[in-house]
């Protein structure tokens, strides 16, 4: 029998490197499927001395997202928060890939608001929703005599995030509730996804909750009722999750 086979990959944010670094990646990694951990890329690119450290965000946007995720999952007595776990990097890379571009979504018009039962009906892709939402929130701050979001104190940031969540803030273009919902969803994703995507650094999220990662075989442990599983977390890339040492 004959099989026509084609590669199929719609989650390549893991491998995403901005265009200007592709040469560098090609030199280091002959296979297109090779994973280049973000830290390695960051370190390498520092010596290239080019502007633009991010896959999608501008520096202002990245700072905004770091500020927001620090409030959504703060650094506290229980351990590192989303910022320390690299969640802003995770979101940056997600938005640069097929997810950010809504590549698999149906994005043909006509566009109508619809009922809440009809789900997402915005013309904005996730990447566009972030860019629009961030600009809109800072514009709202300015209009209301406040400093930009990232410069507000924690209590003010919490208040504004809460108002976005409730839809109590009227933004110029981005629907506040939709923007907040996507931001929170992506923050939780980044905190709890495999570290190879840039977040959950040093397994911060998995250590917090007690998830050991893709350990694969629990035949011997599944009927040891009530007993805490002893092994430390691993990721798909191994014990340090990103295959690079902390600097």
């Amino acid at each position: 029998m004959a099989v026509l086979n084609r590669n199929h990959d719609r989650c390549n944010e893991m491998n995403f490197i901005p265009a200007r670094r592709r040469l560098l990646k090609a030199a280091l990694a002959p296979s297109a499927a090779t994973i280049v951990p973000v830290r390695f890329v960051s370190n390498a690119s520092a010596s290239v001395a080019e502007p633009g450290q991010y896959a999608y965000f501008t520096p202002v946007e990245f700072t905004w997202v770091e500020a927001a995720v620090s409030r959504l999952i703060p650094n506290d007595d229980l351990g590192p928060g989303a910022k320390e776990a690299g969640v802003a990097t995770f979101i940056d890379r997600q938005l640069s890939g097929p997810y950010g571009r809504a590549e698999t979504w149906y994005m043909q018009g006509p566009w109508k608001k619809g009922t809440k039962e009809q789900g997402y009906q915005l013309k904005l892709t996730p990447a566009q929703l972030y860019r629009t939402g961030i600009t809109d929130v800072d514009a709202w701050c300015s209009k209301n005599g406040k400093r930009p979001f990232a410069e507000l104190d924690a209590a003010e940031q919490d208040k504004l995030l809460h108002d976005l969540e409730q839809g109590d803030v009227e933004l110029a273009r981005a629907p506040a509730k939709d923007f907040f919902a996507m931001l929170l969803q992506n923050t939780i994703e980044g905190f709890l996804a495999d570290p190879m995507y840039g977040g959950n650094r040093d397994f911060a999220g998995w250590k917090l909750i007690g998830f050991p990662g893709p350990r694969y075989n629990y035949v011997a442990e599944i009927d040891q009722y009530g007993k805490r599983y002893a092994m430390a977390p691993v990721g798909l890339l191994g014990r340090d999750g990103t295959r690079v040492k902390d600097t």
Partner: protein
Amino acid sequence: MATRLPPVDVVLVGFGWTASILGQELTDAGLHVLALERGAFRDTVPDFATTRIQDELRYAVRNELFEEPERETLTFRNSSDQTALPMRHLGSFKPASGAGGAGVHWNGQNWRFLPTDFLQRSHIEQRYGKGFIPADMTIQDWGVTYDDLEPFYDKFEYLCGISGQAGNINGAIQPGGNPFEGPRKRGFPLPPLKRSYGTVLFDKAAKEVGYKPFPCPAANTSKPYRNIYGAQMGQCTFCGYCEWFGCGNYSKSSPQTTVFPVLLRKDNFELRTHADVTRVLRDASGRRATGVLYVDAQGREFEQPADLVILTAFAQHNVHLLLLSGIGKPYDPKTGQGVVGRNYAYQITSSVDVFVNDIVNPFMGAGALGQAIDEFNGDNFDHGPEKFIGGGYVALWTTGGRPILQHHLPKDAPKWGSGWKKAMADNYLRTVSIATHGSVMSYRDAYLDLDPTYRDVYGSPLIRLTFDFHDNEHRMSKFLTDKAALIAKAMKPRAMHVNQREGHYTIVPYQTTHNTGGAIMGTDPRTSVVNRYLQSWDVPNLFVVGSCAFPQNAGYNPTGTVGALTYWAAHAIRTQYLKKPGPLMSA
């Protein structure tokens, strides 16, 4: 202009569970069978390797293995006075794309429907009277009985290597099994899976309340297994990555693990991937299918002639192809006339999250590792006082503890901030969830047709879904959820959180990929698209196979019944149709 290709005996449209079984059975009968699959080829190695597949973000969150709405989606509305809008990304259900279909990414929860489920209208009328059925409820008998299907349920279970405990063998109730199941001729091929702590807690609590819990039948292998075709499976390791993932361990039954190893080696079988079928073609009489039209990855159009055309795509896609091809009379909800698109149904689910004191290690699990009670499914109880029709099982599944989508928090837990972190730290290892899985009856106003506005990637109208939950389903689901809460209480938890399904059906968030109807089976061409052998009434060399044939939906996961119906249809084709091609039933 389409390029005309050399003819084949049989063309299968879509290459999931139903096509794999039909491919195997019809090549065994000596036919040259071609399967056309819109997605990519996928196999255990390399696509589902354990060093790759245990990735929640890629597979469960970003939907790697499923259909892309960009190419094919549907429009949705709750009622026909609304404007349907496209499902822009996957939500309530997740049909697959690619070889193996949804058989790759299911959990493996494999059930038989009850004998009375197949007699939905006549049984209810006989026990409760005709007036018990609401006027707008369009339920009907299937045209096959449980006894007809029993040998084929058996065959599918021995194809898959189901792990389980029989509850009824030839009428004799078996200890530890489901005493409400229909009689089976023999036990399951494999013993039940080891129990997770969560299922042990449920078992104890359900017994305290007075129910008869049993291990759920699982298409996850409790031991190594060699199936009816000689395919070898390995023992499940409880890695907790079944639903939304392929199995890298040859432990979850799928076309890849149970059929491909044999079928793909045959000279009289051919698979073409990235072959998207857009129409069924007919001759001038309209009574004979001549083949199908498909588009390949380069956008080239081909005409594939075939003597026998079998639609084996996902439920609504089969219906879509019938409507686009003009086969059968489209259903009109105003008059109640017409059949194609009629009796779309779904399922109604709810859950009770139970926050227990002990560590339950939720990440150790398997897709069908569960303990259930069946007292309130189908017509296993007296519906007279309840005044609704249908039911479902109540089960505690321990499918895995994948952190992004499978964490549960108490009702009062903050959604973000330090409070969220603390709630995650306090609860992740100490939470189980009890699920209810309820039937949905068919109604005059729940149907599929072609959308007047939105188009797919080929410019054809999208299929349009008009559907909402009815009062009958809400009351039934509330009844089931109350039973789940009783069991949860008996577990003496720190806290519990009842997630009752309320209000309108909504296309988000995920509920279940148990879409049914639209090309239903029956014994009367005025109320069914296919006869009791899944053969088109209008075009006798066209068969339409899958859950689209269900006249309404029962309170169990549908795959076992889809598998049984497929073997039933394959048997009819082999033993009757091939000897005398033509209608197998007179209209």
